[in-house]
């Protein structure tokens, strides 16, 4: 296999700034990302522009999600009751390990050693595939992009488009090198690639006894789960195997069935830039003779209830995994998803990862220029810049930086000292005044002058001018 990229970095990985530097050195990656995110951005903007009530829909979605966060225990129990009444078995998992154990046990009890999977961020988060592998079970991804990533033994780099870092030629090479039944003479035409994947997957759908899914929404009022997808692979997984296991983060709850009206308008437009996605599956428990007979739902916490305790940070739990924030983020566009070192990359990852795994991703809240493009497009109005600043304020802070900031504050809080500091800056920059700017400064200011000139303080300040004028 010839691909320009090293495999995605593992979860225990170098800090964002270093990984970003590596990504920036890959021109093909940058061009793939700029092209792909640019295309989705344009499509999203067009279909969002068609709705006069877009802002009202965002407000409604934010209000529904805030309500869910206030009433989560009550809604989770209501969901369990309704789903159980409808014939599903509901399991509660405190963390990823517990959810994986439950899923593996159900798979074994169904007499299977492999499962087909619907694309699911929750199962990526808990590393279900890796856990199954370790237990001698196999989990096959059936979403085209997840399949590509799995074949390449890589990691997803985008929430919605996990293989966004590959172009079609690279995908052709992955198929040829890693897919045992890849057709000979496979071209890099999108239709040919999709057909090859389709034939490859069809055999798995027909033989699978167990499917694993996530869910986009879990309706407390009815006990229903909802999966929104584009390829139909989800529908195959959700209807053909006898046993269905759905791993659902507790934040996916919605109080009422009619709440879907709001989210089904917001989600496809924000994620794929479509008015409506091709396949929406909604199921409630088990229905004899129709679809899976053995239906399991694993309600997953994995750090979510701890996030609920933070009044500012908890809005991150409103996320519906649409990826609009990734697609508009100037940082994501240049670094790709792997640099973030977490299954949730981009702006939402920068506020979700450090909260779900406290102490492990303290650098991610700084992986943003706070430009606010993410907040502007977020369909559920998560104020991502606000949460980023909030998380920065939680620390930890570097000792030297803390001292420098404290010193700056001490000067700036005292007008006389501030004026003296400005005078000192003017004095020490005298040698450069004629030139007007400085090209090289010592560390840490060298981080600035690496690509930018530094202007030199002026001969006369505004203050001097004002004093002169008042006289």
């Amino acid at each position: 296999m010839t691909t320009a990229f090293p495999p995605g970095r593992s979860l225990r990985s170098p800090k964002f700034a270093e990984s970003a530097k590596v990504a920036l050195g890959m021109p093909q990656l940058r061009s793939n990302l700029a092209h792909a995110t640019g295309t989705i951005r344009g499509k999203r903007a067009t279909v969002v522009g068609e709705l006069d009530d877009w802002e009202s829909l965002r407000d409604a979605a934010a209000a529904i999600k805030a309500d869910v966060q206030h009433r989560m225990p009550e809604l989770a129990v209501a969901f369990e009751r309704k789903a159980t009444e409808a014939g599903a078995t509901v399991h509660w998992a405190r963390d990823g390990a517990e959810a994986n154990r439950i899923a593996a046990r159900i798979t074994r009890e169904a007499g299977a050693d492999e499962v087909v999977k619907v694309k699911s961020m929750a199962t990526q988060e808990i590393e279900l595939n890796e856990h199954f592998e370790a237990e001698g079970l196999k989990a096959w991804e059936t979403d085209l992009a997840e399949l590509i990533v799995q074949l390449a033994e890589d990691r997803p780099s985008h929430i919605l488009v996990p293989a966004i870092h590959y172009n079609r030629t690279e995908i052709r090479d992955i198929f040829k090198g890693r897919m045992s039944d890849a057709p000979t003479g496979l071209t890099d035409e999108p239709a040919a690639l999709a057909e090859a994947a389709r034939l490859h997957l069809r055999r798995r759908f027909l033989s699978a006894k167990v499917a694993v899914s996530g869910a986009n929404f879990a309706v407390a009022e009815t006990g229903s789960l909802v999966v929104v997808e584009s390829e139909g692979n989800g529908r195959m997984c959700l209807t053909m195997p006898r046993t269905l296991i759905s791993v659902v983060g507790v934040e996916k709850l919605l109080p009422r069935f009619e709440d879907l009206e709001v989210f089904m308008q917001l989600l496809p437009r924000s994620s794929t830039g479509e008015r409506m996605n091709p396949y929406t599956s909604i199921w409630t428990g088990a229905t004899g003779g129709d679809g899976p007979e053995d239906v399991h739902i694993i309600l997953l916490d994995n750090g979510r209830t701890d996030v609920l305790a933070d009044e500012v940070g908890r809005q991150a739990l409103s996320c519906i995994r649409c990826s609009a924030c990734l697609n508009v983020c100037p940082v994501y566009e240049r670094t790709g998803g792997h640099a973030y070192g977490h299954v949730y990359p981009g702006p939402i990852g920068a506020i979700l990862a450090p909260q779900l795994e406290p102490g492990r991703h303290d650098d991610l809240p700084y992986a943003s220029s706070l430009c606010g493009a993410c907040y502007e497009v977020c369909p559920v109005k998560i104020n991502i810049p606000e949460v980023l600043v909030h998380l920065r304020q939680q620390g930890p802070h570097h000792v030297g930086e803390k001292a420098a900031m404290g010193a700056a504050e001490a000067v700036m809080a005292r007008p006389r000292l501030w004026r003296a500091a400005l005078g000192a800056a003017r004095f020490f920059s005298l040698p450069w005044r004629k030139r007007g700017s400085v090209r090289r400064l010592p560390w840490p200011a060298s981080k600035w002058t690496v690509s930018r000139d530094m202007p030199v303080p002026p001969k006369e300040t505004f203050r001097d001018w004002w004093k002169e004028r008042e006289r």
Partner: protein
Amino acid sequence: MSRIGLFITCVNDALYPQTPKAVVAVLERLGYDVDFPQAQTCCGQMHANSGYRKDAAKLAKSFERTFAGYDAIVTPSGSCAAMTRDQYPDLTGTDIGDRVYELSEFLLDHAGVEDVGASFPHTVTYHPTCHGTRALGLGDKPLRLLRAVDRIELVDLPEADQCCGFGGTFALKNSEVSSAMLDDKCRHAADTGAEYLAAADNSCLTHIGGGIGRVGGPRPIHYAEILASTT
């Protein structure tokens, strides 16, 4: 008679006297009396956004003391205005930000003037800075003022709404990513062939201008200086 206080911002205090001078010129031309309280320093944005909440709160308090007696506080910075409006209530509980106006807000919303009587015979491209546009919600207010300037030729900046990569300490902490964003901004600016690149924030212009200093392109200028021009 309402009292107008001018908040020049720490960046202009240190580096760009011409910008607050321009604000004074425009406001006086429109018949306003402006005051400059000498005790002003910094709004505390760098501290707040870098995670130093206590330091930021002290600077917010100092700002509040300095400007307590003013009915309107005018500033030539979208991001500093956004700081006082968005973050002060949470930091110190003050609502002084409601009286802080970015220059274009003051001119359009408060004074109701779109044509400030300026003349600027040059080609200009405009970069909508992120905090001004998004956090403060300036929209195209500075651009509307520029459109009314006599003899100006405005050229569209490609991908104008993309961040220049400054982001305060982001430019140092993630210097490489910031520089990659800056490269694209400078390229787009140069592609316009304009003589000047205007914006509503001199911190962003320091960044973009710092890049343009290396690779060439339009001269950075705060839009207030264009509004002050009568050439």
